[in-house]
C-alpha cells in the first residue's frame, strides 16, 4: 500500500461493487450463452419446457444450418445406408442430405464485402486523416463535420436514391455495389478515428525525416504509417465489425448473389417456423468472431464508439 488515500474505496465497498457488477455481467451474458447452447441442442430440447440448461449436445443444428434435406420413404432409407456422419444425424428424422445450404455462400459474402470495404475505407481514410491532421485544408472543420454527418444519416433515408442509382448502374445485388456503399459509410469513422491517432504522433519524427532528405510521401509511409499501425489496425477492426453487422442496406439492396449473413440468418426455417438450433448455430458462427475482436479491441473501444473524441 502506498499510504492512506481518501479517494481509495474501502474493501467493503469494493466487494459490494464487485458482486453487483459481476451479477449484471452474468445476466447480460445469459442471452449470448443461450445462443451458443441452443446451437448444440436437438430441436426438441430447444423448445422444451422448462428451458433446458443441461442437455445432450448434438451437431444437428450445425448440420441443418449447412445442408438442405428432404424426406425419404422408409424403403429408400433402407436401401441406401448413410454414407457420412452428417447424413447419419439427419436419418433420425427420415431425411437425407441433398446438398449444401446457402449459409456458406452468405457467410463468404459477409467476409468479401466486410474485408473489401474495410480495406478501402482504411486506405482512403488514412490518406484523408493524414491530410486533415498535418496540413491546412481549406474549410477543414466544415469538411470534417460533413464527413461525420454522412455517418449519421438514417440508412433508410438514403436507401431510396441509392436503390435507384444502383439499379440504373447495374450495381444492385453485387459485391462491388455493397463494398462501395459500406466503404462510404465507414469512411467517416475511419477518417475521424485515424485523425485522432495521427494527431498523437509527434511531428518531430516527420520533420527529422524530411531533413534527412525524405520526400513528403516517403515521410508519410516510412515514418507515419508504422507509427500509426496500432491505430490503423483498430480502426480496421471497427470498420470490419460495422460492415459485418450492417443490416438495413443489406436487406434493401441485396436479395441473392451479394446477400450477407445478417439478412439471411433470420430466414433459416425448418418445419413450422424458425429452426432455432440452426438459427442459433448460424448466429454463433457469425457472432463469435466479433466477440473475439471486441476482446482484442478493448483498449480502443471507447475511441471507436465516440469517433475518437474520448481517449481515456
Amino acid at each position, binding site marked *: 500500500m502506498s499510504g492512506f488515500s481518501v479517494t481509495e474505496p474501502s474493501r467493503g465497498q469494493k466487494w459490494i461493487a464487485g458482486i453487483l457488477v459481476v451479477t449484471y455481467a452474468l445476466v447480460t451474458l445469459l442471452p449470448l450463452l443461450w445462443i451458443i447452447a441452443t446451437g448444440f441442442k436437438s430441436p426438441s430440447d430447444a423448445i422444451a419446457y422448462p428451458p433446458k440448461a443441461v442437455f445432450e449436445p448434438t451437431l444437428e443444428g450445425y448440420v441443418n444450418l449447412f445442408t438442405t434435406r428432404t424426406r425419404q420413404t422408409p424403403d429408400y432409407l433402407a436401401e441406401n445406408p448413410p454414407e457420412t456422419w452428417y447424413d447419419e444425424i439427419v436419418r433420425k428424422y427420415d431425411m437425407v442430405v441433398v446438398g449444401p445450404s446457402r449459409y456458406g455462400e452468405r457467410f463468404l459474402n459477409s467476409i468479401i464485402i466486410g474485408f473489401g470495404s474495410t480495406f478501402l475505407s482504411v486506405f482512403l481514410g488514412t490518406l484523408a486523416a493524414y*491530410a486533415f491532421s498535418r*496540413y491546412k485544408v481549406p474549410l477543414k472543420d466544415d469538411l470534417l463535420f460533413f464527413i461525420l454527418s454522412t455517418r449519421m444519416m438514417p440508412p433508410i433515408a*438514403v436507401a*431510396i436514391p441509392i436503390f435507384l442509382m444502383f439499379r440504373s448502374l447495374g450495381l444492385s445485388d453485387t459485391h462491388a455495389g455493397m463494398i462501395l*456503399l459500406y466503404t462510404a459509410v465507414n469512411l467517416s469513422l475511419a477518417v475521424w478515428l485515424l485523425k485522432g491517432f495521427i494527431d498523437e504522433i509527434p511531428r518531430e519524427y516527420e520533420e527529422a525525416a524530411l531533413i534527412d532528405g525524405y520526400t*513528403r510521401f516517403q515521410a508519410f509511409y516510412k515514418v507515419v504509417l508504422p507509427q500509426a499501425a496500432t491505430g490503423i489496425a483498430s480502426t480496421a477492426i471497427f470498420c470490419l465489425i460495422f460492415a459485418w453487422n450492417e443490416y438495413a442496406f443489406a436487406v434493401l439492396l441485396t436479395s441473392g448473389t451479394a446477400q450477407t449473413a445478417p439478412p439471411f440468418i433470420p430466414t433459416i426455417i425448418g418445419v413450422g417456423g424458425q429452426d*432455432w438450433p440452426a438459427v442459433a448455430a448460424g*448466429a454463433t458462427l457469425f457472432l463469435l468472431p466479433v466477440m473475439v475482436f471486441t476482446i482484442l479491441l478493448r483498449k480502443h473501444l471507447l475511441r471507436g464508439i465516440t469517433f475518437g473524441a474520448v481517449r*481515456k
Partner: protein
Amino acid sequence: MSGTVMERAANATPPKLARQIKGLSDKTIAWIFVAPTIFLLLAVNIFPLIWTIRLSFTNFRVNRANLETKFVGLRNYERILTDSDIWLTMQATAHFLFWTLFFQVLIGFALAWLINRKFKGNDLWTTIIVLPMMLSPAVVGNFWTFLYQPQIGLFNYAIAFLTGADPSSFSMIGEVSLAPWSIVIVDTWMWTPFVMLICLAGLRSIPDSIYEAAECDRASKWRQFWTITVPMVLPFLMLAVLFRGIENFKMFDLVVQLTGGGPGSTTELTSINLKREAFEKWRTGYASAYAIILFVTVFGLASIYVKALNKVKER
C-alpha cells in the same frame, strides 16, 4: 507550426534538392489525399441526398415508371406533417427513445460508478459487459424473439420464476401493451454498456485531488457526489445521450427483427414506417419527403452532437 521547420529545411538546401524534398506543394498533397474521400462521400451520400430532395417534390413511384412524374410542390410534406398515423409512429419512437435513454443512463451510470470502485478484475468484467453492444442487432434481435416466446422462451421463464406468473400467460412481442417494452428491454440490454463506457471515461477523468480538497473541507460523500462527480461526468453523459438518441431515432434493424413493427403498429418506429412507404407501398416521392424530414432531424441533432464532442475533447 511544423511548416516553418520544414520550410527552413527546404530553403536551406539547393533549389533542385529543395524541390525534391518538398516534392509536391503541401496544398497539392493535401488535396490528393482528401479528394478521394470527399469524392466518394459526394457520390454515395450527397448526390443521393440531392436526388431525394428533388424526388420529394414529385409524385414519382418506382413501381409505375410509365406514370407521368409530376411536380407537386410541397404537397408531400403537407400530407406527412398532417397525417396523424405518422404522428403516432413518431410517438412510438418517442416512447422508445425516452425509456431506452432513461434506463441506459440510469444503469449505465450506476455500473460505471461501481466499476470505478476499482475492485479486483474490473477490467475483465467490463469487457464481458461490453460484448452485446458489438454484435449484429439484426441477428441478436431475431434470437430474442426466441427468448420472448411464451412458455418455452428463457425470458418468459425467468419472469415467471421471479414473479410466479404463468410463463405461457403473456407474450412480450405479441401483446399490444407489452410489445413497446419488449424493444426497450432488448435495446437497453444491448446499449447500456455504451453509456457505461463513456461514463467510466468521465469518472476516470476527474482528478483525485478534487475529492481530496473536498475531503479537507469536510464535504459529505453525498455532497461530493452531487457537486463534483455529477457535474464533471455531465458532458460525457450528454455525449452518450445525444449519440444514443440519434441512433435510436433512426432505429431499424433490431426492431424490424424483433417485432417487425407489430402487433398492429404499436412498435412501428419511424424508420420502419418509412421503409413500408418506400419499399412496400413504393410511394417514392412521398417517402422521399418523409426521408428528408428524418434527415433534417438527425442532422440537427448531429450538429449539437459535434458541439458536445468538441467540448469533451477539450477536457
